[in-house]
């Protein structure tokens, strides 16, 4: 019943980038108030053709989320209205520290997203820096799937 209820209801999503905040490294922020909707995220596959496919099917690339260590960008695949794959297509790898953290973290984060699929999540909460970039990009891919 629950899935039917959701399928009957359309969703829309809008994203903007706001509230630059200070980090301990005091890096120069990106411009505030930059609207993200409309240009990115981008839909990279052709629209569904079969009538019984869920409207949100396809591959959706989230915005690159800027972290103080570099951009993080996530791509998801949605089939039958469910997230079936997620890849971090960009993540910080410039410094030795970043490589060490991310070579360990990214495959696991991908697993995490797949668990999100089985858990049918609507949105993501989190607080850490790379993780926040991941949260932001994953959220924006979810946004794109609903657009």
């Amino acid at each position: 019943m629950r899935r039917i209820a959701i399928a009957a209801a359309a969703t829309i999503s809008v994203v903007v980038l706001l509230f630059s905040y200070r980090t301990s490294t005091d890096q120069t922020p990106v411009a505030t108030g930059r609207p993200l909707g409309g240009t990115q995220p981008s839909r990279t596959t052709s629209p569904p053709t079969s009538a019984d496919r869920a409207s949100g099917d396809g591959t959706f690339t989230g915005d690159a989320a800027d972290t103080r260590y570099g951009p993080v960008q996530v791509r998801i695949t949605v089939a039958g209205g469910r997230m079936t794959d997620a890849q971090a297509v960009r993540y910080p790898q410039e410094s030795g520290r970043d490589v060490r953290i991310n070579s360990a973290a990214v495959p696991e984060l991908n697993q995490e997203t797949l668990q999100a699929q089985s858990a049918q999540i609507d949105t993501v909460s989190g607080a850490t820096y790379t993780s926040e970039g991941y949260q932001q990009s994953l959220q924006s891919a979810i946004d794109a799937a609903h657009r």
Partner: protein
Amino acid sequence: MGTQVSLHLRGLRVDTDPAVEPAVAAVFGYLRTADELFSTYRPDSQISTLRRRELPRDEWHPWLTEVVALCEEARDRTDGYFDPWRLPGGFDPSGLVKGWAAENAAAHLARLRGFDHYLNAGGDITAGVHGSRAPAWRVGVEDPADPSAFLAVLELRTGGLATSGSAARGPHIVDPHTGTHPSELQAVTVTGPTLLWADVFATAAFARGGEDVEEWVPSRAPGYEIAALARAP
């Protein structure tokens, strides 16, 4: 580094109802105004002027007066564990403003009948689900201690949900009492009726820690609870 703000609306005819677009515009208009007033990165913002001690009291915007009063209340209610005055670089209400602004912005959706919503501001969420048969929003909470799994998947209908943490990328929350970075907890998620206080108490609980932190939050903020918690190993 900016914060992404994501708004989702759910309901029949959400993409054709003429009331939707002006309501969404009002939400983001509110957020932009709040950003202009409170961004510590805009040299001309009220908060930047205040931090330079160049803003006389009689020039305060009413929202600044409100936010400062809320910061004082938050400091008192959290036993000083949330204290925007005791931060490196001086008074900085950013930790409260995001939740406050997101919540006030989402209030512009109240006149939209028949739609559910959530507004996610950098991982902190305010939501409204009306109708008893409508499903709750399902929120995945990242687990900083074990990235192979979620800490929790929480259901949120109407209210706020906020996560504070530190973990892999190093500390950024300061315990106002000691000036040090707390390390006992890795992440804490608080839920309750409003995002403003869920956010304040997530930050305060992270700074405070303690074996009794799960009792401390509802004792200081009735109706609020720690819904997910990761302790350092």
